[in-house]
């Protein structure tokens, strides 16, 4: 792997160099204390040191609201929405969000390939950046270390003077070609990033827990504090559910078919014609949400479908933590199936 040094003051010219090759999307400040991916206009407004963005880069491949087609009732015709072919460069992506894109690739390719997602996903390059985990991140606990470069074309690892630039793919090589702001890599070893383990069990032991968790008490307990607002679904980088709606214009002849993100915590999600709702209670919905992350797809792929970004917890107004839910499931599992009192389980969270 080729390595270079990018000094801090060269960053804007590096971004300018990328802009010549495609549309660059990167984190920017949003509101009082948040961050959001946006198209880069001014290279020096990009922020590469951030905890998490409100939404992940999923929004560029599966937009929150999207026109599927426009139709005319007059001549019974329709036209699909157009999807641009522009080259997109995503700069400053954290490893867990990259992993989430790879997971969505699987979801939208297996079975019925999802045309719009795959069209939007074309011509994308990814430049990762290291991050300092905060209280909500647990990506390492689900098997994704900070420096995991899977999916990236280039990886930027923060050091005292700027970044170590690691070229991962040929595509990455091309992106930096002809950029003369890079220096020789510093003679430093990759810095170890402290990541306190947050899950009680190693993620590869979770399937055995989830096998026994359908009737766990935690679902009802969490439901007491949950308002069913759906935030945890909508901010999740691996959630992909959507709803489709027709919207007519005032001529009552022409209209559009639009889709927007949906979530399994919401009332209309499991409602079917005739007024039935097959997942009425918030406890059942909470179980479904968590099973979507740790059991159903995991059963098929062998991987957790949660990337440990911490968004669902950080943005839940009720303070419901997915880490606490999983750990409580582990506790219940031990008590019921291993007949071990929790306090004597002897597990040392720090050391895992």
């Amino acid at each position, binding site marked *: 792997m080729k390595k270079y040094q990018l000094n801090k003051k060269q960053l804007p010219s590096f971004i300018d160099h990328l802009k010549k090759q495609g549309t660059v999307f990167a984190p920017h400040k949003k509101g009082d204390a948040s961050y959001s991916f946006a198209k880069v206009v001014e290279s020096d407004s990009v922020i590469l040191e951030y905890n998490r963005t409100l*939404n992940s880069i999923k929004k560029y491949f599966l937009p929150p609201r999207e026109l599927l087609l426009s139709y005319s009732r007059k001549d019974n015709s329709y036209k699909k929405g157009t999807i641009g072919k522009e080259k997109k460069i995503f700069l400053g992506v954290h490893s867990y969000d990259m992993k989430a894109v790879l997971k969505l690739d699987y979801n939208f390719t297996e079975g019925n390939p999802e045309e719009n997602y795959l069209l939007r996903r074309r011509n994308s390059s990814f430049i990762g950046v290291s991050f300092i985990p905060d209280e909500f991140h647990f990506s390492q606990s689900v098997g994704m270390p900070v420096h995991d470069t899977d999916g990236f074309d280039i990886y930027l690892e923060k050091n005292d003077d700027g970044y170590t630039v690691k070229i991962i793919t040929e595509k990455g090589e091309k992106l930096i070609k002809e950029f003369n702001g890079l220096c020789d890599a510093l003679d430093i070893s990759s810095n170890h990033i402290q990541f306190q383990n947050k899950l009680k069990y190693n993620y590869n032991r979770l399937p055995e827990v989830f096998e026994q968790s359908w009737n766990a008490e935690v679902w009802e307990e969490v439901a007491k504090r949950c308002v069913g*607002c759906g935030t945890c679904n909508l901010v999740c980088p691996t959630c992909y559910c959507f709803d489709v709606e027709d919207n007519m214009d*005032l001529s009552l002849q022409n209209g559009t078919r639009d889709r927007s993100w949906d979530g399994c915590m919401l009332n209309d999600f499991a*409602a079917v014609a005739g007024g039935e709702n097959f997942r009425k209670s918030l406890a059942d919905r909470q179980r479904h949400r968590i099973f979507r992350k740790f059991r159903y797809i995991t059963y098929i792929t062998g991987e957790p479908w949660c990337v440990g970004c911490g968004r669902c917890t950080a943005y839940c107004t009720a303070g419901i933590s997915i880490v606490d839910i999983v750990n409580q499931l582990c506790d219940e599992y031990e008590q019921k199936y291993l007949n071990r009192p929790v306090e004597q389980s002897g597990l040392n969270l720090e050391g895992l």
Partner: protein
Amino acid sequence: MTTEAKNKPKVAFFDFTSCEGCQLNKLNLENDLLDILEHVDIVEFREAMDDKAEEYDIAFIEGSISTPSCVERIHDIRRRAKMLIALGACATQGGINAMKNLQPIEEVREAVYGDEKYRFPTLPAMPVSAIVKVDYKIDGCPMSMPEFLKVLKSLLAGQEPIKPDSAVCVECKLKENECVFDKGMVCLGPITRGGCDAICPSFGQFCTGCRGLISNPNKNAMLEILTEHGISLDEAKKRILLFNSYDHSQSMPK
């Protein structure tokens, strides 16, 4: 009901106890109004014209029911309307008016009308649906214009309008708003019925719950969220009841 029919549907607007803000809001439609007139005949609309008709295909009602004469009038309109639609928080859920129900009614009457109170018979403020059948509700204070147009278009095209039953938070997330809780405010968005495109949080303001609550509001959990963010329990209840007294004061946790 389709516009291909020779006669355009007759549409009428009526107001009851309200600020008439919803009707004014509708006059602001401007361009769209002309397009709407292509499809409907407005036969009665107190703010705009003074024409009386006997029957209506759609009667839009603004305002809550709060006097014996309101009750009579709404029965009369319902008899003459094929379809009746409540417009705005006062009509759909009693709105702010229903806060008066939280006090003994005689005290309220005295405070408002003083010595003249016997000339003004009054009732607890009620949504239109408390008295007659309401076919659709268009929420908001003032009512949401996009929702008004959406419902009208669906009805004119002979389709069933869809009513969202998810929280304002959903629209906040679709727009990638920073949550106002993170700006140090408290917000009723988590249990308030969306459909307004989260307009208040989108402008940095908290949601006051004007569109009413979703069909399964977990009020206990909402109260906990509010008190966790430094609001007293009493104040938290008052905030939820501001627009929702009629439907939710009885079931409010003690």
